[in-house]
């Protein structure tokens, strides 16, 4: 029996080794070799993270329009259920989509697999500078931002009037924000609501002149007096009861709390306009820029770029597709369909005429700070969110000390 077992084990091991070695054969090819380019008509794969049927259809229409004008090329639009997962599978297998949406928070994790084409586009200077900064690595613009959102302050105008507030009371700074939030707070309504995440609280850091990382994202700058000032202010808002997190109000997010009248003001992104129109069409509200902090105006930007796979065999055609998607009137069409803001400055005037409610969001383009783009920072920022969720109980100084330690470790300093 023992002899038979050892023979079987030997056979299994040998088979395993043979299979592994055959897998190695294909694997050792140098994956940095550029893919051989093919000219002429191409069949491209375009992958997006679908936010709904409207976006998918808009993309399909835009792709079809480009196909018709391209002389034989086709573009298949793929709506990913989980874009990071599906992109990871594509890159690991060596067969990524030719063109794909890259969320800014994932950018540097994919940069090595992307063709850095941004500097060569004719409309580069037309793109908002803060958005270009987000997708620049080692001095190269890797990809063009396709659209963006910023944060602003929504104000329930009925609640505003009922509290005796006028246009002159619109908060311009932190002290005024707290004061009006206090006046707007009642038994059943919070003065201010925002989501318990760095994607909202981070705006206060920017307004105070702080941020967890330096401009090059090579050094941790979390534990600074500016960041502490911002987090302390946020804690004060929460502990005094004038600001609340959505779940404390029984709402899934700040847009829902604001729409249901459980909060008089809300810090949210420009997607709130479309969301409120659909879910709470009777709500009367206005949007103003976020109040400035000690260091001046500040907000956050959320954006995606059009990545082109370095391994694509149709890079020239992919660039043409991207150019078509970035055409000014096409950007306005996208804005109309699924509520993003165009990333090109040249359509600013027309966009503001078409969407006056978005003016406050668009005015944040100059002072918007992009997200951290390093994927290795993901667990650090998730931990930061976990700490933010524990405000006002948690100590801001301790939160920032921990963030500094974790960021330093993640950056490998």
């Amino acid at each position, binding site marked *: 029996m023992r002899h038979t077992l050892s023979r079987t084990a030997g056979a299994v091991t040998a088979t395993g080794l043979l299979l592994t070695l055959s897998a190695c054969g294909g694997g*050792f090819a140098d*994956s940095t070799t550029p893919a051989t380019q093919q000219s002429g008509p191409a069949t491209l794969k375009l992958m997006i993270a679908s936010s709904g049927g409207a976006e998918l259809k808009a993309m399909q229409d835009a792709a079809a329009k480009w196909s018709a004008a391209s002389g034989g090329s086709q573009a298949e639009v793929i709506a990913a259920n989980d874009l990071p997962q599906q992109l990871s599978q594509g890159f690991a297998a060596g067969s990524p989509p030719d063109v794909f949406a890259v969320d800014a928070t994932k950018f540097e994790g994919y940069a090595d697999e992307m063709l850095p084409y941004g500097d060569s586009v004719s409309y580069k200077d037309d793109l908002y500078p803060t958005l270009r900064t987000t997708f620049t690595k080692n001095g190269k613009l890797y990809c063009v931002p396709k659209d963006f959102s910023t944060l602003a302050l929504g104000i329930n105008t009925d609640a505003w009037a009922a509290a005796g507030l006028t246009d002159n009371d619109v908060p311009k700074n932190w002290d005024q924000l707290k004061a009006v939030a206090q006046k707007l707070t009642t038994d059943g309504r919070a003065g201010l609501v925002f989501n318990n995440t760095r994607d909202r609280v981070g705006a206060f850091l920017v307004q105070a002149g702080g941020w967890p990382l330096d401009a090059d994202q090579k050094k941790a700058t979390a534990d600074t007096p500016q960041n502490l000032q911002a987090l302390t202010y946020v804690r004060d808002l929460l502990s005094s009861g004038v600001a609340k997190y959505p779940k404390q109000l029984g709402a899934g997010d700040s847009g829902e709390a604001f729409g249901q009248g459980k909060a008089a003001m809300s810090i949210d992104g420009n997607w709130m306009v479309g969301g409120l129109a659909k879910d709470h069409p009777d709500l009367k509200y206005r949007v103003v820029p976020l109040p400035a902090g000690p260091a001046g105006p500040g907000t956050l930007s959320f954006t995606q770029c059009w990545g082109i796979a370095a391994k694509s065999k149709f890079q020239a055609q992919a660039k043409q597709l991207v150019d078509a998607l970035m055409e000014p009137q096409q950007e306005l069409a996208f804005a109309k369909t699924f509520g993003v803001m165009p990333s090109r400055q040249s359509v600013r005037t027309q966009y503001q005429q078409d969407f006056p409610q978005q003016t406050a969001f668009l005015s944040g383009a100059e002072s918007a700070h992009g997200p951290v783009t390093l994927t290795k920072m*993901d667990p650090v920022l*998730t931990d930061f969110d*976990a700490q933010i969720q524990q405000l006002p109980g948690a100590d801001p100084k301790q939160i920032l000390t921990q963030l500094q330690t974790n960021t330093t470790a993640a950056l490998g300093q």
Partner: protein
Amino acid sequence: MVVPILMALWVSVSDWTGNGSPLSSRVHFVGADNYAALLTDPGLTQQNFATSVRNNAYFVLFVVPLQTALALLLAMMLNQRRLKGKQFFRTAFYFPTVTSSVAISVVFLFLFSSTGTVNAALGLFGVNGPSWFADPRGIFQLLLHGLGVTNPPQALAANSFMGLSWWDWLSGPSVAMCSIIVLVVWTSTGGFMLMFYAALQNLPPSVDEAALIDGAGPWQRFWRVTLPQLRPTLFLVLTLGLIGTWQVFDQVYVLSRGEPAKTTLTPAYLSYSTSFIGKEWGQGSAIAFLLFVVIVLFTLGQRWLLREKGE
């Protein structure tokens, strides 16, 4: 079958970031670095892994006994010879098991909302319900708080294991995790009920009748006659329960993504987010292998506990 496991094992000792083949020349051997980051190197990685193990351990500790006992109880009820509507109850109890875990998770999101059905029901009894999926407080800490212990004892707060203070280790499952525990017990019980029911159906009635003739009451008959005969099924249910609960992922992915404050983070979800989002595939694979070790140890442990005394 073997090659994917070997590939995963290689990834767990490499620095692969998910781009290109894990066997390409750009991927380097890093020895036990990935395991060290999870187990011995102080830092966020170790802390997150410890947090996920703690969360999942409480999950296992609560779910396995509850679902096993409940499944057996329901099976015993179904096995009553004079029970009317047996077919209906069997279907009703089994229904949650065959329903999509994603669909049920979404329904639970509404049930356990701050203003949802559960809190409305608690309100009828004068209880002010918590924000279930937003509440990161451990229930053991809440109990202590109710007894007047408002600050963590110094000995527990000041000492830590794997980057987590003993106060955090002993916090109990969070309120949010309790919601997931309720969900999973409810959905898993039906399947295990069927296993017990099938086993009960196969028991020879003569043994039970002999005990009845000898004057044994219902309680005695259950513990001394029925339960010993169910030992193999009990072993199967506990083993499947242990394996399934340590691998909990669906409900965390849909309901909470590890929040609030990482109190519903589990090793399976941590492996996913570390790999696909953090792109630290080496660590993600290492978590999967460590989870495998934990499951094997627990299975061997309960096998030893339930061994036949006379064997």
